[in-house]
């Protein structure tokens, strides 16, 4: 009887914890069934020449230009 109770408790615990799982919210972007021409990423051009980190940094700095609190404080 104790074994059955323990087994039920274990299964219940696993089921309860299963609901706490978190799936990634960010979609993985795939080309899917796209039939057209391939497009080169924006950071492949000069002056970044494939340096994605530098390109993203440039855009991130530019993004902050939209935040006037950063400029006025």
């Amino acid at each position, binding site marked *: 009887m104790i074994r059955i109770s323990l087994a039920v408790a274990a299964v219940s615990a696993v089921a309860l914890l299963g609901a706490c799982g978190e799936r990634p919210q960010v979609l993985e972007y795939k080309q899917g069934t796209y039939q*057209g*021409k391939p*497009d080169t990423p924006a950071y492949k051009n000069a002056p970044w020449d494939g340096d994605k980190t530098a390109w993203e940094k440039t855009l*991130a700095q*530019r993004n902050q230009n939209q935040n006037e*609190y950063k400029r006025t404080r």
Partner: protein
Amino acid sequence: MARMKFLCDAERCIECNGCVTACKQEHEIPWGVNRRRVVTINDGVPGERSISVACMHCSDAPCMAVCPVDCFYKTEEGIVLHDKDLCIGCGYCFYACPFGAPQFPQAGAFGVRGKMDKCTFCAGGPEKDMSDAEFKKYGRNRLAEGKLPACAEMCSTKALLAGDGDVLADIYRERVVTRGKGGEVWGWATAYGRPDAPRSGVAPPAGAAPQPGAAPQPGGKT
């Protein structure tokens, strides 16, 4: 990885149409095509709000799902683009889009639809970056130049924000906290009501005043 998004702060938009003008000027868009529009709700009455609308570059884009020739693709940054060489101008994407983003230039006297045109988040299309062919088909590729979309960068009140979704959320959150209001204008409370609002299906008592901050009434001028 950045997820490029637009965010329009309805508390700040003054319906100047500067974003529309900037977009048309930047990409030399022909008459009859508006990649971006400003929509006003409750025009001329208290509670009037305006919001700038274009392609929202959906994470699960319905235009991509319905396209019969699969001319849509998504960049690493989550920008929804399409290949005009494949597009047949059928208009399915227009029917599927909840924002009315796809535009169709009229290619004849009888309104024959041309190939679909829409906001590219200033990221061009599947042609050589910053080439003449890309500019003629899709407009300027500002992202390849290290710039953000012209509409947002030109916005005089900075109502329209563009860029990495996480950064935009931070900027908007700081604004709402600083001014102490405005977060309720567009969002969960507008769409689904508040805990103190009457539940749907339960009629308010006769003569009851409308709830402050309640959703705009249907029939508002757009």
